[in-house]
């Protein structure tokens, strides 16, 4: 779907990422187990906000949500984004997806400047309730983006894919209900199932597990890792849970408070595949999460009032 652009930039990995600018790694981290070959993180930059700035409103009411953000997301990378509430994470994802035209700066998808939504991209919205269409059944909601004109799968195949995706998120058998007949957490999982069934090349997720219980959450984390591993899709994942950010990501980008910039970018050099119990007990994991937490907390304490 997404063709690699002609002007693709190949940058060698640097040991220490310059704050605010992280670069793609041409090589991959050593796999923990040699049996399961890991999908390499490509050297192609799929997504790149460049000096992004977003201001809401005009005049005296203007709020600069994002001051200046530049980073790069490589093909196949799993990028976690954390930052204080209201710092502009959702705004950032909306800009990356092409839904929101930045006030200044650019978003490059596969090296090309875009100002509209790109194909092959999917997003799980923070406002999951409102992103489900109340007039469609749960299954139809999942099928909705699949039934587009460009994809020519048969009706049957699409339905099966939707059912599979629903089963994967633990919603076997609710396909015929309407979204408003489901609980909050179930609705959120429908939104996730929709994104997964879509099989995007780039997946943007905005706090997708916020309404889930601990067990469902870790199940879905692992599901996401599995999908990421199997399809090699690029994932940008916004979360408030530092553990989750570190556990899932290849890299954690920490945003500052408003007006927002990239405060730090942490490479997560934990082996893959990861595992809820083993990975989280690794010394390196604890180190990384402490580091990330420190960065986030430091950020909070300097927050200026609105």
């Amino acid at each position, binding site marked *: 779907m997404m063709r690699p652009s002609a002007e693709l930039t190949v940058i060698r990995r640097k040991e220490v990422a310059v704050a605010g600018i992280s670069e793609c790694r041409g090589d991959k981290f050593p796999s923990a187990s040699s049996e399961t070959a890991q999908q390499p993180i490509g050297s192609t930059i799929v997504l790149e906000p460049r000096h992004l700035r977003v201001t809401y409103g005009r005049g005296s009411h203007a709020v600069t949500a994002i001051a200046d953000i530049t980073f790069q997301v490589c093909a196949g990378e799993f990028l976690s984004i954390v930052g204080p509430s209201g710092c502009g994470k959702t705004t950032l994802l909306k800009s990356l997806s092409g*839904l929101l035209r930045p006030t200044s700066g650019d978003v490059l998808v596969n090296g090309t400047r875009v100002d509209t*939504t790109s194909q092959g991209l999917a*997003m799980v919205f923070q406002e999951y309730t409102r992103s489900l*269409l109340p007039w469609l059944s749960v299954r139809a909601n999942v099928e909705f983006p699949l039934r587009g004109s460009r994809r020519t799968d048969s009706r049957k195949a699409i339905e099966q894919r939707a059912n599979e995706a629903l089963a994967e998120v633990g919603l076997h058998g609710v396909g015929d209900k309407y979204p408003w007949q489901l609980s909050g957490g179930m609705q959120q999982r429908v939104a996730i199932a929709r994104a997964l069934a879509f099989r995007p090349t780039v997946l943007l997720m905005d706090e997708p597990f916020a309404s889930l219980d601990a067990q469902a959450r870790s199940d879905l984390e692992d599901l996401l890792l599995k999908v990421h591993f199997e399809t090699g899709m690029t994932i940008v994942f916004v979360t408030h849970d530092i553990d989750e950010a570190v556990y899932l990501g290849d890299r954690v980008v920490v945003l500052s408070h408003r007006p927002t910039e990239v405060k730090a970018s942490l490479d997560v050099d934990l082996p893959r595949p990861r595992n809820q119990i083993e990975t989280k007990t690794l010394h390196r994991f604890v180190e990384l999460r402490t580091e990330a937490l420190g960065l986030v907390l430091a950020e909070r304490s300097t927050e200026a009032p609105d």
Partner: protein
Amino acid sequence: MKVMRAEPQAAVGGRRGEPARARGRALLDALRWAEPASVVVVAVLAWEITSHVGLLPQRDFPPATQILSAFLTDIRHGELWIGVGASMRAWALGMLIIIAIGVPVGMLLGSSSISYKLTYLTIEFIRTLPGIAALPILMFAYGVGQPLVISLVVLAGIWPLLIQSMYGMHDIDPVAVATAKVYGVGRLRRFALVDLPSCMPYIATGLRVSGTFALIFAIAASLVIGGQGMGDAMAEAARIGDRSLLFARVLACGLLGLGVTLALLALERRALRWHASQREAAR
């Protein structure tokens, strides 16, 4: 005034056990018909009494019983039915045109700021020109006949639907639209799957208002400009000074309107099962 639309999906019956519940249900069903019926009876009685005590001159406003008996004789005659047929034909044709133009144009105006900006002044101006006032001009263009009636029906009936469609577009949830955009859903499918269903509650309202407007004009047209139709039947009754017959035919108009609305409501209930205003019914 108590805001009572609690969410008692789970609440119906229960508590008192099954048999009581079944009996309650039957009673409820009976009430569903009994109450509106009694309201109608009261209204008819009120008219009857008004006429008898001479609040309105009885000569000109015959009592309800007289009107009803005139109505019952009238519906056995072809004259009324010819009028009904002609008016309903004009209504149906008019509604087809109204829907075919009103919904897409309204949604277009509501969706794109450019088309809206370009046309809103023109549309607002034309909109408030009542078709009836333009009659002299239309009359010359069409002459008396079905085309004139239909153009009057369309001119009067299209605006509610068009405006409601426009407002419906203004009320689409941006998150739903954003979802469709992000997933690369094409414009046409977005229209069919997001825009249209989202506008549906507004369109349903518009359709009901348009439906009666169109009917009113389908009937009134022949009253004002001649030709065949219910209006002509009323004019005929008025001409010979038979007030009972006149009111019987007015009654027939109202019944037609009632029928049209009930049909549209049934349609709406099917189409809007998901909507907050209909969820109780769907449960």
